[in-house]
């Protein structure tokens, strides 16, 4: 029997977020291609079982629960220890993680512990002739690399919002407890607190709809127009580097080469000309809409839909239309 596919499932405050479900669902496809067993690995403090039950639809054969007070908050050393232990004890050949803040931090540390290779932020995973191959955007999406691996195990992190969810009605998974023995002295970097979670907006990297503003926003106050449309659509607000560097909006909203790379279902670029810097961060979006005064702006060359016109006139109308549609 080929080696297990093991998927790390991120659980924050008892909740499994969508990128982990997407990763598990892709894990099912990879395990089927290998003809191997799919194991979901969940770590946290005691009481993970309800979270584990939410994984059933993605089709894992086994769910391993690692429960320990020292795993209550994410911490790279403790999590890398339990993940590496699980990979060893299952003799997993392929380890998948979501390319979230947590997955990007944990993946390399756990891979280093096992002397294993890792391909980051992949957008496609396939098995040909019994060998795993992945595709990943490099040079901020200006090129796509096809990567193969040497040695075992191999680690892969998957870009959120790219892989579809499963709808498996297969047999219910086996839920097992994974024994944890952590030495508190070996956990040195510790999270003291998490700020900004209360009533927080959706993060631009997680949203399935993103509305971004650029240089034509002219100042911080006009981002209210972007926010209103994003809210009406149930999406997140983003910005170009020009708007961030001008100090109109915080860097956490920046989409582009030195900001976040996003791939939502719908990306609406408002007053963004389409500098290579920006395109690098959003060109894998499924549908791109551009709103710009300048009919020759480069952004129109890759937009699926566009409006040439004044965003100060168009955005309020657009928000109104969306609200009407959604009965808000």
């Amino acid at each position, binding site marked *: 029997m080929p080696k297990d596919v093991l998927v790390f499932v991120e659980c924050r405050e008892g909740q499994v977020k969508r990128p982990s479900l997407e990763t598990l669902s892709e894990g099912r496809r990879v395990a089927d291609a290998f003809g191997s067993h799919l194991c979901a690995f969940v770590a946290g403090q005691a009481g993970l079982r309800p979270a584990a039950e939410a994984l059933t639809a993605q089709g894992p054969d086994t769910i391993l629960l690692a429960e320990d007070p020292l795993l209550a908050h*994410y911490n*790279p050393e403790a999590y*890398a220890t339990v993940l590496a232990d699980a990979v060893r004890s299952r003799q997993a050949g392929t380890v998948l993680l979501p390319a*979230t*803040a947590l997955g*990007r*931090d944990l*993946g*390399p*540390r756990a*891979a*280093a512990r096992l002397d*294993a*290779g*890792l391909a*980051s932020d992949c957008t496609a995973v396939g098995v040909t002739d019994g060998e795993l191959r992945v595709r*990943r955007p*490099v*040079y*901020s999406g*200006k*090129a*796509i690399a*096809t*990567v193969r*691996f040497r040695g075992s195990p*191999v680690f892969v992190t998957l870009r959120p919002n790219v892989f579809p969810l499963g709808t498996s009605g297969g047999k219910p998974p086996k839920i097992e407890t994974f024994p944890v023995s952590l030495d508190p002295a070996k956990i*040195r*970097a*510790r999270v*003291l607190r*998490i*700020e900004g979670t209360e009533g927080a*907006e959706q993060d631009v990297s997680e949203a399935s*709809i993103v509305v971004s503003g650029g240089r034509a926003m002219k100042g911080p106050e006009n981002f209210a127009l972007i926010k209103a449309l994003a809210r009406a659509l149930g999406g997140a607000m983003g910005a170009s580097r020009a708007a961030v560097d001008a100090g109109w909006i*915080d*860097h*956490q909203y*920046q989409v582009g080469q*030195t900001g976040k790379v996003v791939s939502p279902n*719908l990306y609406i670029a408002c007053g963004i000309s389409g500098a*290579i*810097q920006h395109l690098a961060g959003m*060109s894998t979006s499924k*549908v791109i*809409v551009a709103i710009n005064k300048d009919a020759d702006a480069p952004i*129109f*060359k*890759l*937009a*699926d*839909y*566009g*409006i*040439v*016109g004044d965003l100060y006139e*168009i955005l309020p109308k657009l928000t*109104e*239309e969306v609200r009407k*549609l959604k009965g808000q």
Partner: protein
Amino acid sequence: MKIAVCVKQVPDTETKIRIAADSRSIDESGVAFIVSPYDEYAVEEALRIREKEGGEIVAYSVGDERTATALRTVLAMGVDRAVHLKDRAFEGSDALGLSRILAAALAPESFNLILFGKQAVGTDRGQVGPRVAELLDLPHVSVVTRVNLEEGRLTAEREIEGAREIVATPLPAVLTAQKGLNEPRYASLKGILAAKKKEIRVVTAADLSLDPAKVGIGGAATVWEKLELPPARTSGKILKDMAPAAAAAELVRLLREEAKVI
């Protein structure tokens, strides 16, 4: 305070990417090379810590001959000395190999703090910082936007989805820098002149007693089999010369009925 900063030379972020004849790398002709932007935040943070705490900053970089110019750039910003990890055996290293090389070079030096950029622009892997921390058995905090150092204890803020984690760690530790951490300084003329006299020590695989089979292309666990340009997107329906209200209504209809995304 003894601080190491690991930097990488990368193609300028404005570069138009062309694929080389081997179909697995980029065509480097006419490409300008720079210090990876996230590494500059790491260098700047090191300089600020030295201004407060005193001490020494050493820059490390793995790369061919050309990489010396990246090291000169950070020496001109104010780094004290540099180590150029240069060996034919290092060529084609992936994150696994690079972290082995850097960990071998850093291990004997007992640094209090080792800084990286959160990722090198280009390969966009974001792995080497946490991997080096693991190999050196040090704690790490990645993607930091704020660092506060008091009495040998470090607090850092890191970005997570929609929130910030406040992390405390004892030293020695590894940090990786994110945009927003600081505003990197430009090298002064005095700095540029001083950099010419600073030491860049060349270190090879043999100097580090590294097994050449564990680094470079031969030691890589991930190999780029093919590199291609992304599929070109073509321009779609652009609404022109319409009244704002009509254009907005038509766009919403298209997104609803044709694209089916809202």
